[in-house]
């Protein structure tokens, strides 16, 4: 597991090299899409979170870990919304719920949401909500990423536009080795100031 200090600066990734897919797979941002500064929030209690954070941290303005107390996201969202920064996360649903509550009065909405459920027989389902312009590509990428889905997802989200509410949905299922300990559903998300 990456140390908390490493979270904050996307520091040493030596131990995670084996988790980074060789193809550095991601949904490639188109030239016309601007890459906005963003912050990253991650549940630090499991390897999916570590992998996601390792993928986004090098490009993030700041990275934050959240443990069992989802309230840790409150300060993150307060600062991010004050600076009008996009926030990406891979957390529990309760953390996302709190993040949305803090961000919504500032005109923030969900530009992306993913629900990632480990099913029986080493299957993993991704239920995604995003923009029709790139959601199909993202769904296809995750369908083919197996265990490397957190990295692929993180790298993709870090480069996608985030100014409109997610309205299109896609669901894909793939084979994936279950983590040692599954402590509940994971949700990935992108909260951003939306166009009026």
């Amino acid at each position: 597991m990456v140390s908390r200090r490493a979270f904050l600066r996307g520091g040493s990734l030596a131990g995670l090299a084996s988790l980074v897919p060789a193809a550095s797979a991601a949904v490639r941002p188109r030239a016309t899409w601007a890459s906005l500064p963003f912050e990253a929030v991650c549940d630090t209690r499991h390897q999916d979170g570590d992998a996601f954070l390792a993928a986004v941290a090098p490009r993030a303005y700041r990275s934050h870990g959240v443990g069992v107390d989802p309230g840790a996201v409150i300060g993150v969202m307060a600062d991010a919304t004050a600076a009008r920064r996009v926030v990406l996360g891979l957390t529990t649903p309760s953390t996302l719920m709190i993040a949305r509550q803090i961000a919504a009065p500032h005109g923030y909405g969900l530009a992306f949401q993913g629900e990632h459920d480990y099913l029986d027989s080493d299957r993993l389902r991704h239920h995604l909500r995003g923009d029709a312009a790139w959601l199909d590509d993202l769904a296809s990428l995750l369908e083919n990423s197996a265990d490397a889905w957190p990295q692929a997802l993180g790298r993709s989200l870090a480069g996608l536009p985030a100014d409109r509410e997610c309205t299109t949905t896609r669901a894909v299922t793939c084979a994936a080795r279950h983590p040692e300990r599954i402590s509940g559903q994971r949700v990935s998300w992108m909260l951003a100031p939306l166009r009026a």
Partner: protein
Amino acid sequence: MPQALPNWLTPQQFQQAVDEMRAVVGKQWVVAEDGPALRSYRDAFSPEEDDVFLPSAVVAPDGVEQIQKILKIANDYRVPLWTISSGKNFAYGGPAPRKAGHVVLDLKRMNRIIEVNEEFGYALVEPGVTYFQLYEYIQKKGYKLWIDCAAPGWGSVLGNTLEHGVGYTPYGDHFMMHCGMEVVLADGTVLRTGQGSLPGTQCWQLFQYGFGPVLDGIFTQSNFGIVTKMGMWLMPEPPGYMPFMITYEREEDLHAITEAVRPLKVNMLIPNGAFTVGLLWEASIKTTRAQYGDPKKRLPESAMKKIMADHKLGMWNFYAALYGPKPMMDNTFKVVREALGSIPGAKFYFDEDRKGDPSWDYRVKLMRGIPNMTEFNMTNWVGGSGAHVDFSPISPTRGDDAVKQYELIKTRAHEYNFDYIGEFAVGWRDMHHVFSLTFDRSDTDQRRRARELFSALIDDAAKAGYGEYRTHLAFMDKIAGTYNWNDGALWKLHHKLKDALDPNGILAPGKMGIWPKHMREEEA
């Protein structure tokens, strides 16, 4: 333009009123267009459809003077205003108004900590001050004072008290620990209760009664005025703090636990807000239903033993704490251990036994006044868009009643395919039995069943002589109807007060089933 407006207001009148309010508070502090900002004032845990409780606009004043100007406008146009402090009363409605189309008066900008007095142990706060904020302020100043907070620390100190909320330290009865209010009435009059009405007083936050009738209570769980300041007593940091937990293996132990704890509470040997917590409440903090069964269905009894073994829990888990010098705590604990340890299978746990256990850690924090949000993990239990509404009947601290309420709620919950997730907050002589009806809000069928279950429970409890102390917007009228002794004398008095204090009915219509005259006549 919002989809719903009060039916006595034309869109033009509404727009004019909103424009006048904008001129008072500044346009950046009014939201009247549909979008994420307005929708953030919907009830995120509602068992109803999304728009049933959606406001038409939100206005955020910065102080009493702006509130008075808003009230003048509201009276002129008869715009209904639903006041919120921090709007975090989730499971009971959150920031949403009782009726769609009403305007939310958001007091979040009134977030000054006016005074913290270490000598006498009190704080004077405005509505927007949260538990997190007050706690951090006290830490920064180095005062030797503890706060008492509700389980989610983002709530308003003042707002939670007005809702009769409870906490976990010896100062857990929040309304009992309040001292002095400042209130703005519907006509804009500002008054101060208790000693606060004596100019130059130094006792506003020291003596709760003042001279004459004590009116503070009528401004709680009501719509008779807007509370703009409130004093709260704060506990001096004790020389010692000893939290403990006891697990009990069998469902039927609830009777014996309750009988054992009653004399300990009535005699104040256990001074804090103690809790008898059901297994699934504990489990929901740190795991999910999907780990033990079908996430769409309530857990079978057979799963309980596995949860108990995996997480070192009992069917019931009792939390309490002692405070004070060590010799006193040790002596008192002997009595506590003898009483609560006499139940076969009881296992005692202390800090060194459960450090790092999320269920233990967050309660240890709460019992010494450290706010956190860990209990929110409960919404992860069912997956999807987890939410909960709380059914909260009051029980005597008596074994027979605890068991009767537990069986009543559990049986009904299972009938509707919901888990019993519940706990008893053990007060001085009563228990607040909180059943957290947890459901996936994105599932229309679950929402319907949640509404039906809640309604059935209200009827069942009233028939058995138990009333709720607090409830969600959707059920306020129904529960108000159960408090009907002597042909509804109490609510008739509430309505007389309402008509006298707020003749235009602009303050929170429908709060706790109290409606202004023109809306009662419309319904009739």
